[in-house]
Structures are given as C-alpha cells and as structure tokens.
C-alpha cells in the first residue's frame, strides 16, 4: 500500500480530514521524532505505535474527544492535533489526559510550527554535538579523559569540560564550558537543552544554568558567563524572561556577575524576603547569595531549610556553613538545634509527599516568622500522632508547623507556652513537631495534652530521636564547611 493510500485509509477509518501540515509529515517521513520524543504516523494499522491505533485508543478512553488526532502517547498523556480548531492547512497541538475528564490543554503551537522548531533545533543540536565531539577529541589528544575506573578527573578549570544533565534516564542538557582567566569568568561553548515530559517547562535549561553557575562559584571565579558565539541561547532567554531578568549585554552574549547571581537565586527559588536578609548579611561580610545558592545546588540544605534558617537562625553563617566546631560546645549545640529544626521539617515534608500510595503529593511551602506554612495538592493523612492516630490534611487547607525537635528537655512548660503563643491568630491546622525524645518526659501526657488541646493544636512526633537528627545535621555541617561563604 502506498503512503497516499495509507493516509486516505486513516482519514476514512477515523472519519477526519488530516490537515496538510501533518499530511506532508506523513507523506515525507511517515513517522518521526521531535524534541527527542516520537511523533506517531504510518503505517495505517491499529497498533498503538501508529496515529490510527493511538487515536482509536483516545476515542475509547475519552469518547468525547472524537475530533482529535493522537500523535504521541506518553504515560497517560497524549499529544494531539485539535481538528476542532484547525483547518485544512494546519491544526493546533493540545495535550489530553486519558485518565482525567479535564478539557484538552492548549500548547500554544501549530503542528507545522512544532515541526519547524524541531528542525531548527535539530540543526542547532547537530552543530552543537559536532562541537562537543571536537572538544572531546581535542581533550583526548591532550590526554584529558575521564577515567571512570579510578575516578580520576584530569581536567582543570581552564580546560574545556563537557557536561551532561540527566533526569530520569533522559538527557535534558549538554554543555561545554571552561574558566577563562582573561575575564575571570565562565566561557560557554555549547548549550543544548531539552525537556523531560514529566517536569516543568524549561527545567533542562535551568539544570544546565545551575550547573554552570555552581561551577563558577566552586572554581572561585566571578559569576560572569559569556557565550562564545556572542549569542545567548533562546532557551536561556525564555527562562530569564520568566524570572523577569533583563540582561544588560544580551547582544554580546554576556550575563554579568550580578545578573548571574540573581539568576542563580531565582533558579533555586529563594524567597524575596530571604534575599533581603541575605543582602544585609552580605553587607556585613558574613556570607554571599551565590554561596547560599551553591549550598542548595549541592543539596547540602534544601530550599525551605535555607529559607527558614536565614530568617530564624542566630549566627546564620555558622549554622548554614557549618562553621562551628564541636569543641566550642555551646555554640555548636546552638547551631545543631537550629539545623535540627530545619531538618525535622524536611522529614515532615517527605512524609507528606509519600503519604498517598498512588502518587506523590506536591507541597508548597513558605516561611512565616519561625513557622513553616504548607499547602498540599491532595488530601492525605499523617500518622505521626501518638497512639497510632493520624492527622488528616485536606486539599486547600494550610498546615502551619512549628518545628521544635528538642534535645534538652528543660524548662519545658515555659517552652511549650511559647510554642502555643507562636500560633496566636493563625487559622488552619496547627502542629508542633517534636522528636520522639519528648515521649521520655514522665509527665508528657498531663503537661502536653492538656496545654495543647486547650489551644486546638496538634503535635506530631517524628519517629527519630534528636540524636539521630543531630547526626544528619553534623554531616550537613561537614559538607557545608568545605565551601566558601
């Protein structure tokens, strides 16, 4: 059967008119790949790897979606041509979820534009890959090669280094950069990024940018980034546009020092009020915003931990950068206690995220004084109440958490009264977070339950001790102290 006959067969079977743009694609390519993911097409069979099979599946799963052509299946999502809004020439692209009744999500692009973008990107990618290959060959000729057997890394900052970013087995970014001593910054040769369908738009670009900026910080250069072709990649500009960052030297392919820091902090999601505090600390020569970003990038601290510590910890630098030594016991104890607070909340966040068996629950966290405010994407239960009870959390409800993993159980009544006072005037669910050390208090029930229940509060008990949390905090301190502030 010729291609034309197969195209006619698809139209007849599905009772639709295929727009010219997709018809040409079928005629010339049959099927293909765009942005690393398949575009379904011929042959005209009912297998799910063809447009005919996929569209039939869509019609069975979503009978109301009759006028769509499914051209990609990814998990329970389908990329479709929306024939209801298209014409004979072209059709817009939409995304349809098979297991949901939501209306199709418009992707803001016609099929022909999508294919053109892909063709252009392919050209860029091929030329970029060629450049990367050349750089790797040159490095090899100079004896510079990663040796995975003995983990030796012969590259110095000034050598061209090729890096890749992967998310869940997919390569989302490739780049090559080096430290250039002539302008004391990072010079980027190739910057190729793509998307992982399960993550937010632009995350490949964000991952690469974070990688480059972290390297700039680690190598001790200024944070200035220059692209060799004097052109900032469109994907980068698109990300910067979302952050509302305008570059002064965009036409010269330069992101200057301060712009880079601003990008770095936006990439990692540092709260604006936290940034203001960091700026004050910078003036006092305590720490730098890029230093903080670097620690988050290296996963020494999570973003909400940093946000909380910046607002609440005394001697911020000592706690975040692990500068206190155990031999100065009192300072060290204080740092540990604040580190423990931040970490205990992270444990609660992880608990919330996995509390639903079928899918991960997304959390949105903000910091209000010394309280964590959490909103969730789905109803769930947290079984950290005492006596096998669970705390129900509803979608749309805010959970306000005061993290207090106490180690030294002294002046306890006074302390709990302060804990209760911190929630005054707040709505929603309110909890105090303790470690299981609190259960060792002989009069725990009488003191706590009466005080807490009077004020409509709950307490959650993390199933670990303060000592166990301390160990984790100590390992964070060890990692953090290796880096400059």
């Amino acid at each position, binding site marked *: 059967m010729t291609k034309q006959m197969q195209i006619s067969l698809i139209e007849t079977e599905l009772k639709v008119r295929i727009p010219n743009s997709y018809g040409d694609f079928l005629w010339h390519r049959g099927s293909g790949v765009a942005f690393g993911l398949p575009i379904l097409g011929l042959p005209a069979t009912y297998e799910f790897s063809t447009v005919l099979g996929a569209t039939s599946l869509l019609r069975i799963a979503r009978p109301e979606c009759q006028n769509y052509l499914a051209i990609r299946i990814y998990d329970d999502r389908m990329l479709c041509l929306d024939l209801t809004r298209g014409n004979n020439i072209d059709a817009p692209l939409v995304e349809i979820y098979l297991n949901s009744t939501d209306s199709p999500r418009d992707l803001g692009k016609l099929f022909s534009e999508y294919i053109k973008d892909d063709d252009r990107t392919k050209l860029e990618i091929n030329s970029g890959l060629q450049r990367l290959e050349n750089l790797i060959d040159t490095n090899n000729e100079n004896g510079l090669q990663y040796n995975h057997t003995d983990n030796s890394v012969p590259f110095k900052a000034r050598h061209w280094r090729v890096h890749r970013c992967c998310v869940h087995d997919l390569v989302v970014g490739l780049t090559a950069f080096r430290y250039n001593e002539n302008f004391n910054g990072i010079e980027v040769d190739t910057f190729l990024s793509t998307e992982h369908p399960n993550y937010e738009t632009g995350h490949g670009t964000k991952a690469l940018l974070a990688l480059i900026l972290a390297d700039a910080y680690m190598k001790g250069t200024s944070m200035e980034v220059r692209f060799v072709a004097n052109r900032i990649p469109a994907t980068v500009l698109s990300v910067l546009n979302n952050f509302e960052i305008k570059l002064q030297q965009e036409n010269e392919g330069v992101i200057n020092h301060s712009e880079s820091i601003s990008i770095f902090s936006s990439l990692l999601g540092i709260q604006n009020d936290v940034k203001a505090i960091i700026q004050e600390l910078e003036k006092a020569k305590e720490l730098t915003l890029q230093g903080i970003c670097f620690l988050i990038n290296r996963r020494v601290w999570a973003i909400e931990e940093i946000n909380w510590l910046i607002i609440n910890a005394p001697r911020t630098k000592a706690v975040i950068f692990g500068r206190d030594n155990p031999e*100065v*016991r009192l300072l060290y104890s204080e740092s540990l206690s604040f580190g423990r607070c931040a970490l205990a909340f992270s444990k609660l966040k992880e608990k919330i995220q996995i509390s639903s068996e079928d899918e991960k629950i997304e959390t949105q966290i903000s910091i209000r004084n010394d309280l964590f405010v959490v909103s969730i994407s789905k109803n769930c239960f947290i079984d950290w109440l005492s006596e096998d009870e669970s705390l129900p959390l509803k979608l749309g409800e805010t959970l306000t958490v005061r993290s207090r993993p106490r180690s*030294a159980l002294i002046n306890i009544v006074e302390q709990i009264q302060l804990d209760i006072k911190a929630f005054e005037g707040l709505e929603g669910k309110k909890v105090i977070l303790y470690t299981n050390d609190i259960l060792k208090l002989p009069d725990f029930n009488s003191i706590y339950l009466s005080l807490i229940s009077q004020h409509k509060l709950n307490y959650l008990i993390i199933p670990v001790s303060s000592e166990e949390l301390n160990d984790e905090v100590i390992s964070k301190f060890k990692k953090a102290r290796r880096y400059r502030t």
Partner: protein
Amino acid sequence: MKITALAISKTDWKNQTISVVVQQTKDSARKILKGIDISIERKRFNNSCRILEKYAIQKGVEIKILEAKIQEILDKSTSDFSVLLPFVELDKLKAIKDYFDGNENKKLLESNAAIVFVVDEYSFGNININLRDNKRPEMLISNIHEFNQIDTNKIEQRRFDEQILYALTTGDPIGWINIELVRQHENKSETTESKAQFEAQKLLRHEGLIACLREHVYAAKQPTVIREVMVDKSVVDEEANEEREKSFGFKIANLFIKQSTIMKTIKVKQSITEVLEIIPRKIQFAFEDGSISDYFPLYSMVEIVPNENLQVIKVALISNRHFELDSIVETCIIRNSEISRLEEATIAQQEKLSFEKAEAFFTEVLEKTQGVHIELYHTGLEPAVIGTYRAFLKKVLEKNNKGQFYNRGKLIITPKIKRGEEYDSLKKWY
C-alpha cells in the same frame, strides 16, 4: 543565646562514669588543640559533652545566675580561643566570690562540684561566646613601608603578586578569590574604567604561590630611623676665661706656661641614624573552606649572600604522592597519612600541622648538621606548602639572646617544581 546553669553535686560529679566522661572531654579538647586525630577527637568530645549534658539535666539543680555573670564566667573560660568546655569545676574557678555573693558562694561550694552549662534551645538571650580572633590589626604593624617591585610576564604570577600587595596593604587575608573585590565590582556600573580597575585587582588561585611569595620575603634594606638626641659638647667657657684673665696670678703663670683654655660641657641636639630591628609584614591565607591560616611573615629580613658549600639533601614535601620521587629524595617532611587523617579538619588546621612537622624537621636537621641545603620537591597541597615555608621562615628568624639570627646562612631551601617530566628549581630561600 540563652543558657541554663545546672549545679552538679560533689557526689554526682565523682560518679565513676561521669569522672571518666569529664576526663575524656578534657583529653579530647587537649588533643584537638594539638591537632591530634581531630576527626575522632571531635566525635569523642561531642559524645562526652552530650552525656554530660543529659546527666546534668537529670541530676543537676538549676541555679539562677544573672546572664552577665554567666557571660563573665564563659569569657574567662575562653582563655584559649578555640575550645570552650560546657562546664566549670568550682574548685578551679578562680575568685569564685567575684561571681556569686557570700551566701550563694558558700551554699554552692558546700555541696556542688561543678556547673554545667546547657543551651536553652530556641531561646534568645544576651549571652555571646566571644572567641578570640583579633588578628588583623597585628598584620599592619610593621616598620617596612616599601614593597618590592616585581617584574613578571606571567599573567598568573602578576595577579598573585597584586593579591599579595593587596593583603599587605589592607590586612585582608589572601584568598582563593577576594569576595570583597567582587562585591565592589558588582556595585559599580560597568564603565570601562571600573572594569579595567576590577581586571587589575581581581585575584587568582595559589598557583605560582612560592615563586611569588619569595619575591616578598626580603626587605630591600634594613629599616632605619633618624633621631635627634641631646649630646654633651665641650665648648670654650668665655665667661670663666675672661674672669680668669683679670687675675694677676693667671697673667704671671701664663707668662711661664701657656695656660689651657677653660672649657665647659653643654648639651646640643644631634641627628643620629639608628638601625631598627625589622618588624615583618604579616599576611594570612583564606582557604577555600573559609578557614584562615596563621601569620606568614613577609619582609622579615634583608637578603644575604647564601652559603654555597652546605651539604645538599633532597626532600619531598609529602610522602606517597609522587612515586617517581622515591628514587630521587632521601626523606619526606610530612607523611601522607598524617595529612589524610585530618580529613575533617579545616584547611588551616592542615596548614598548621604541616607547619609543625616542617618545623620539627628543620630543627632536627639543624641540630645534626652544621647547616643544610634542602632541595624541596613539591608534591602539591597548598596548605602543606604554605605551612612548610612558614616553618622555614620561623626557623631562620629565630634569635639568640643578643638578638642575632643564629640560623641564618645555615638553612637554604631550593623549591623544586614539576614541569612536564622534569623538576625545575625556583629561587632559593635562605
């Protein structure tokens, strides 16, 4: 910070387990101070403190002391800048009467042996732990005001040289990167002038470290000072002579023997040039982990002619790093395992250990020889390099009772740096 003070009774403090824990805490603190097995000792110190605190919370009795008093006690306890034990033993707390009034004092001493301090978690009080760190002012006290002009074509060395000069003039430690300069750069508008200024000031890594430092070791000349002093001067005493000439006896005597002129001593001002002892310009290094080294003395002596007839020994800086050196060198200054054992220590502590090892090495060779020329094969690791050359300077700058450098001329180091397959010699240090 808010602190609770818990008094521990004599009986409880003498409890066998606690005695061991207290001793362990003190031993670990001592070892940490000396840089011995820092990683393990920190764990031990931490564990012992934890046990003590728990014990104090269980057995101790809270004593109400004003924050100001606690502050005073803690300030006294931080006599050493890097260790603070979480307890004070009352019999060792000098002048206890300064902290407590008569009755309290008596009551406290009668039954208690120690006070354990526990941090009130998440409470904000007024207590500050003040570690002693007043280093910077000392760095700028020197009588050397002129710096050597270095002519180097190598861009890295030139920049490092600028970094040294910056540290010498401001007292800021030399760092991996000078964050302050980056900040200044950031705050300036991107004019050509400001860019050029930044380009000129920006700082580099420690590559070429020893070659650059060597150029700033010797002062061009011994510092001098011109002083005006009052000195005795003998002048003709006109008045006395005139008076004498009036007398008959003088005239007769002068006829037979010419009488000498009467002189008198007066005080006059005179300028004298005094040669001063050199007060070195000290710099510090800020390492990647934010730790700061001890002082490295530059411009600490004037140059002399090196003794070329000293016995030569070939020495590697750290063992086990470059195996090809094994057939070249006779010994190593630092064992690789000693440095590696300090993996949890700060880089400044690694530098300190290298300094101590190198100092011991130089002392030993000087005791056993009449002088020695060391060809020092570098094996990397910046803190070790800095520590070793700091030890060299300390050794050659040692003075005897008469204020003379008794090791000068007896110790020469020729740095050997690997370039390609060969080792090149850098300028000698002597």
